[in-house]
């Protein structure tokens, strides 16, 4: 079931176009990684989807509500983690949560506050002033705030930005937990590893939507699937035999490794290994060449820059 749908969503600020013609859809229970460089329109898109600002063109529907018309109803069913934690430093963690929970008519505040203080590992510090918290703790509390009313859709705007690796890891673990609970999460980030680790699909935006697919399919778009056969030692005889195999489409050597493209990389793999062993080659490992998502991302941005120029 589609829970987020945008139709040519655009937003201008004066003469500057922040977001242009973004059309996408997100399934319920999906985590969509929303990638883009600084100023690419990630936050503006999230703000439009969360009903915080209106689009100048196009529209979006989130959980059945037009984001530019049904703002109040929308705010009852979406949760938003803004770029800054936006908490009250002078109040305790519990009081912060109670305050925000107090705006939702449909929840039992106390039990919800209790639940999320526990989930975020903040129960022991619940009565401490937030001003005494570390950045990571503040971010966990802000995440609790975004979740306290059990939103159908959660918008996370760069949830690990500015956190140290340990705190960022804690926040990612919490997002994983939420993903396992089947929540729909729209995750804006410019951390490629984070996007790949947490998301089922990735959207790349640079004012316009450049790509939207699974990380694997995005890789395929730019890189063909390659198999790496690690041999004990380089062997010209083995190379000759492998070259003649009908399903080998391309082959080159990198030291004691053979890098190949096969007609069907799944099915042809056993035959390939058999042929190498029969030719006297000693196989240490067979693996698939991994292209970092970063390369895909940079290629997409380069393409976009070329199109613009």
């Amino acid at each position, binding site marked *: 079931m589609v829970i987020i749908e945008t139709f040519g969503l655009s937003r201008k600020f004066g003469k500057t176009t922040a977001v242009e013609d973004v059309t996408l859809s997100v399934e319920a229970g999906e985590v969509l990684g929303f990638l883009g460089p600084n100023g690419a329109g990630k936050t503006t898109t999230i*703000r439009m989807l969360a009903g915080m600002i209106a689009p100048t063109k196009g529209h979006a529907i989130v959980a059945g509500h037009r984001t530019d018309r049904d703002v*109040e109803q929308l705010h009852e069913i979406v949760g938003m983690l*803004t770029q800054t934690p*936006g*908490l009250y430093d002078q109040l305790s963690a519990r*009081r912060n949560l109670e305050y*925000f929970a107090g705006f939702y008519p449909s929840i039992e505040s106390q039990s919800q506050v209790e639940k999320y203080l526990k989930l975020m590992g903040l129960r022991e510090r619940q009565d401490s002033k937030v001003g005494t918290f570390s950045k990571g703790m503040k971010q966990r509390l802000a995440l609790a705030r975004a979740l306290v009313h059990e939103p159908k859709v959660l918008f996370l705007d760069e949830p690990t930005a500015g956190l140290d690796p340990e705190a960022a890891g804690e926040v990612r673990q919490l997002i994983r937990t939420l993903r396992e609970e089947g929540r729909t999460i729209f995750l804006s980030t410019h951390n490629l590893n984070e996007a790949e680790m947490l998301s089922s699909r990735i959207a790349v935006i640079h004012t316009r939507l450049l790509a939207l697919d699974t990380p694997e399919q995005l890789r395929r778009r730019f890189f063909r699937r390659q198999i790496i056969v690690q041999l004990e030692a380089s062997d010209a005889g083995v190379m000759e035999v492998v070259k003649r195999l009908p399903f080998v489409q391309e082959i080159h050597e990198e030291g004691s490794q053979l890098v190949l493209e096969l007609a069907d990389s799944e099915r042809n793999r056993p035959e390939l290994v058999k042929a190498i062993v029969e030719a006297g080659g000693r196989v240490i490992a067979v693996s698939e060449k991994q292209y970092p998502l970063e390369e895909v991302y940079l290629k997409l941005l380069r393409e976009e820059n070329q199109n613009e120029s």
Partner: protein
Amino acid sequence: MSRRRIRNILLKEWVLLFTDLNSAFVITLLPFLVVGQGILYIWLAFRFGGESMLTTSVFQTALQKLTEAIPGVAQLPGNEQLLVLLISQFNLFLLLIPTMIAMSVATFSIVDEKLSGSLEALLATPVKTWELLLGKALAGAIPALAMTWISAGVFLLAVSGLGWGDLTGFVVTAGWFLTLFLLTPAVAILSFMLGVTGSSRAKDPRGAQNTALLIILPVFTLIGIQITGIVWFTPLLILVLALAVIIADFISLRAAVRLFRRESIIVQWR
């Protein structure tokens, strides 16, 4: 639901207000400074100005208006007439308390949230603009009002303590009560609404404070009008004035909601 949300805002604001030393100081001590200053001016005028002040045309006119409103004052000796005239000004002087507290507290209420980033999180909840603004205005206006009433009591005690207790019968009139319990609440709400509106439109705390200066001017005007004898605020006049301010309260709330631009606040503030 609106009542629950407004109450929610009120309680949070009060915790923040009284855990912030500056705000707590302004709310608790400033009213007593106003009372102290009022008493001091009256004592100085009485002690050193004496009956000679009554010969000035300004006071002559004011005294004439006062005796028209409260004929019994005419039977008093000159120096006591002067005292009644001066003490009578204090009910309007009390209006300075909520307006000054509003200047100090309300003007920062939105700007502070903008700067800390909590406003964006707050605006992502289903809270309505009017609930937010009214909650913030009431959060300041209620303690300011309570302090104004306490100050009025303290003032009357001080007047008695200085040996002028017999004269309070000429001062604590229907007009005094109307000012204290109708005009002052209306002015308090108006001051805080204007303060909150200024705060939501200001680009920085300094801008908010500059806007706030405008709040206090009408109160000075009222005091000036009465003390110079241009108009003496009879109970009827105070009632009319209070009703006008109550109407202004509603207009200011509507205006505040219209002037509160969620988009610009979210987009332009970092």
